[in-house]
């Protein structure tokens, strides 16, 4: 449930967004008028509204001061809090979030939507009995990590519950689980989600990530028992192949997934997630050796060490360290990014996903160099392209 003051703020923000959008993009106004023509006067707000722009934060240390928070259209950030992996015969929480803020205990300038990444292996191995215990442990750790976290728009205090009791309140309104489940792990994953949901206070939304293959092959992969989902529209190409053009985003590939193919609407309300990052994929003797995060053209400008093969591909001509990675002569590097043109094309394909009030367009990830250099208006334009 949304509190009234918050709803008011949100409606105001939504109105402001619509006004801003109209001012910023004259061309968009023309298009909208032509498109909506005679329908416009009677069209309910939500049908013309576009998704709200938001972001994922995926690094282990959250430093709010260093983030381009002006890009957020709502005071809300999806923050990966930890990973759950399988180690030593049991689930283990690793890469736990650390928050470095100017003043420990000071309110954060945004709400956190905690995201927990769970490897598919955990879901394949966790026992029926272990599922509830895992759900309890995850909530316990989130309490430990976020218990003190407050923001003006959040209910105060921690979750105020111990494992096994029904919690009364929560420091977060939504919890997102990220797991690349498969048909083989689906049963166990869905049970885990149901267990988790049963432990969450009623007002907390449980959301899940949905990958493109899960969206398209929904009959085999199933629909997760959650309140809503985030359709992740990136990492679409075969990263292992040197020949791949851009594994991060490729509208020629996404078009094959973004089809209903007679399946009707996806039964979960879906937010949308697009990439906003770049990296360099290093290939050694034909095999993917490393991904170097945030690698750009400037990093490869030294022609003594890197020979440009074409716009995005380079040959390493002498042994060298690059950003902490030892590269050998003969290695190849392919730069991959999230070009605006491609994002725009993919955004149009996303019109197949039903819209709904409070739908979000999330970008992965805040803090990337692209998020630093892309303007808020461009992101809003992408959001407009979807509707």
């Amino acid at each position, binding site marked *: 449930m949304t509190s009234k003051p918050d709803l008011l703020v949100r409606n105001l923000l939504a109105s402001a967004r619509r006004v801003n959008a109209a001012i910023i993009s004259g061309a968009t106004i023309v298009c909208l008028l032509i498109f909506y023509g005679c329908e416009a006067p009677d069209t309910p707000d939500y049908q013309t509204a576009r998704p709200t722009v938001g972001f994922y934060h995926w690094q282990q240390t959250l430093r709010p001061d260093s983030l381009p928070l002006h890009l957020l259209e709502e005071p809300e950030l999806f923050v990966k809090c930890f*990973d759950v992996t399988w180690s030593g015969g049991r689930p283990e929480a690793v*890469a736990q979030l650390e928050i470095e803020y100017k003043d420990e205990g000071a309110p954060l300038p945004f709400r956190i939507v905690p995201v927990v990444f769970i490897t598919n292996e955990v879901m394949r191995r966790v026992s029926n009995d272990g599922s509830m215990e895992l759900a309890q442990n995850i909530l316990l750790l989130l309490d430990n990590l976020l218990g003190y976290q407050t923001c003006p728009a959040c209910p105060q205090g921690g979750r105020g519950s111990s494992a096994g009791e029904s919690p009364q309140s929560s420091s977060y309104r939504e919890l997102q689980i990220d797991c690349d489940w498969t048909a083989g792990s689906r049963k166990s994953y869905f049970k885990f989600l149901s267990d988790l949901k049963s432990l969450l206070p009623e007002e907390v939304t449980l959301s899940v990530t949905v990958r493109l293959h899960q969206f398209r092959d929904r009959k085999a992969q199933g629909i997760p028992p959650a309140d809503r989902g985030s359709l992740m529209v990136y*990492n679409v190409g075969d990263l292992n192949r040197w020949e791949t053009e851009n594994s991060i985003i490729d509208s020629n590939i996404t078009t094959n997934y973004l089809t209903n193919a007679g399946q009707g609407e996806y039964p979960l309300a879906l937010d949308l997630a697009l990439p906003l*990052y770049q990296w360099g994929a290093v290939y050694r*003797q034909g095999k993917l050796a490393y991904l170097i*995060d945030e690698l750009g053209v400037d990093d490869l400008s030294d022609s003594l060490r890197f020979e440009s093969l074409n716009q995005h591909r380079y040959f390493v001509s002498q042994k060298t360290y690059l*950003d902490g990675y030892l590269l050998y002569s003969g290695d190849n590097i392919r730069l991959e990014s999230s070009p605006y043109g491609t994002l725009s094309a993919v955004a149009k394909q996303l019109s197949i996903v039903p819209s709904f009030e409070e739908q979000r367009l999330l970008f992965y990830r805040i803090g990337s160099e692209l998020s630093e250099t892309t303007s808020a208006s461009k992101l809003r334009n992408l959001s407009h392209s979807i509707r």
Partner: protein
Amino acid sequence: MRRVLISLFTLAVLPLALVGDCGLPLEYYGYEFLNPAISRLDSRFLPYIGGFETLYDELDNEDWEQMQQTDNIDEWYERYCEGVEKQDLVALIYGDSERRLQALRRAIADPESRLSDLEAKLRTNSFARHLMKYRCGEVVDYLLYAKKIEPHVTAPRNTFAKKPPSGNAMKRLVEEGLAIFPTVESHYLRLRYAYQLLRLSHYRGDYAHVLELHEYLMPKIDADPSLIYYWIDGHYAGALLGLGRRIEAAYLYSRIFINCPSKRESAYRSFSIRTDDEWKELLLLCKSDRERADLYVLRAQNDRALLLDEMRAIYALDPDNEGLEMLTVREIKQLEMDFLANDLNPRRRANLSLGIPRPDARQRLIDLQQFVLEVAEADRGKRPEFWELARGYLHLLAGDFHYARRAFWTVAPALENDTLQQQLNIMRRVLDIMAITELNDSLENAYFKVLANEELLEKYPDLDNLIYDKFRDVYRDNGEYGKAFLLTHKLRDLRYNLDIDLLREFHALAVDTNDNSFERRLLLERGGPNAVNDLIDMEATYYLQRGQLRLANKVFRQMPEENWNDYGNYAPFKAYFDDRVNRRLPDTLQLFNKAEMFQQVLDLEERADLSPEPNEAARLYYGVGLAYYNMSYFGYNWRAADYFRSGENARRAANGQGNDFVFTTRQTELDNYEHMSMELARYYFEQARKKTLDPERGARYAYWAAKTERNQYYADGMPGGQRPFGYFQLLTDYYDDTEYYRKIIEECRTFAWFTGNLSLDESDN
């Protein structure tokens, strides 16, 4: 700041494992004989022979903690001149022993107290007894202090549990330790206190204080050489790293990596060089070429490192570096997977899908050969025999058997080290196996002894596969297909598609009384203890499938009578209107084993031939027809004449995909024969129909003949594209006034359609 981030989130879409056709992960199959122990390293160094990162994936935190615990206990053990039991050290140092340690401390402090005053668990603990005897209060104080620190410096077992907010507590513990330190007499204990103090401050994140403490404490310690110095260095390096003094930190980590096995993993993980300039600075910081070479050894631990590149650098700096041998072994082990006996490897295609051999393997082999030759000929190292042996094995991998043999011959007299000698022996054996072109009884018997040598097989678990795979190829090349078959299959694999030549060959092998132990072992291993009876059963089944019932009967009866029931009991004489291949038979039916069943069918036929009574003869022929029908692919007793049946093959047969009723199958490369022939069944139903004078019986026999007509049409791939209805027409022409005719219309929709009693839409196929 750019951070290297291989995010689980973004990588979750990457394939994690190659998966075979049936959904199971593919596994490498090949032959490995190189023993990493031939390199000159202590045994705990050996695990990282496969690349440190692979090892890291295989071991979890508890393994590393255990390794560190072992090191620590060994340290204490040496300090006490091995006069105490290790398990007693573990109990007091790592056990839940705080209360007992306090009791021990009180006892030590009390000059009146005696050993007998201690509680039983302390009295029986050799370490506690030792401390009590020599009144070592300092040691107990230290252990108690260390126990207080432990929760603040170790990760909780449950990673979901809340971490104690321990900043202030840690600070207090540092102060407490600093107060104790100057009072401690033992320099060894001072060293341990220093370790705990630096550790606490490091984990508190107070890096500057770590450096200050180091400067203050270390000059006050004059202990014997100890691993604890490296543990201290680890925390000192961590503080340097935290303060941005990356090069000094990297240098220290490299020294810890080389010298301290229990901290090797964390040192490797913490070692970080980001730029070429940093690397150059690090090289300058080293005190000797050996230390510089060690840096290359360290970075070669990356699984993706190009080893030869690093090895050349190591060799140039320190030709006798121990790491060079280890890296050579690691590279040869990869090449061993790429090349050793690849031409005989039955799963080389599956290996290819795993990327083995690697596309550049040939060039890597050539490059390594050049390097090894260079080292061997330069004779700069202390162990030329290692390089000569490596040279020989690389020749073997390259297929140059002559040069391999020569290298082995050259090195043999120089080998004094047992491990190298054993390695040479197995390399020579592999070479001998690879060079075999013909096999005879004496060679087979010789290899039987090798295969019976359990100790050898335990040491080289791929040896039997290599022998079998090689022999299979040699047998095949020399036309001994039976033996070649047995080397890759179980005897029972033959049952998919019985081959009479192989059956006879195996039978002869099984009853042969010559003294070839290898053949006997082979048959026993591949056929199990009942191989002879299994072969008889298969041969009888082969003849049954071909309609040669007398021969089948004769062959089956070669089996001892007491084993007849081991091959199933059958009741093929029951008539059911509908065809179902899995049918629960009534308990009242008489069951026959194969010998009895064969005889029963033969007797029925003989009685029919001789019977002067037409109706009786017809009834008997009908029984024979039923038996043949029910033992066919279409009948409920199909197991009497076959071992495997796939329903899918009926569709494939109708589509003309079979070849004389033989169909491809995933189960075996031999394909699968389905016993689909209806010839004999139809012959006997027709005989019965002709003989009988009773129209009711005639209608029944004609109907069964119609079923054979239908089955044969589909089994033969629907020749002509038009299903024949000869027997349906016969029924309509001659038996339309019988009760059985009306019953057929009721039961069989196709017949109902044929007779105009059902529209086409409603009819069966």
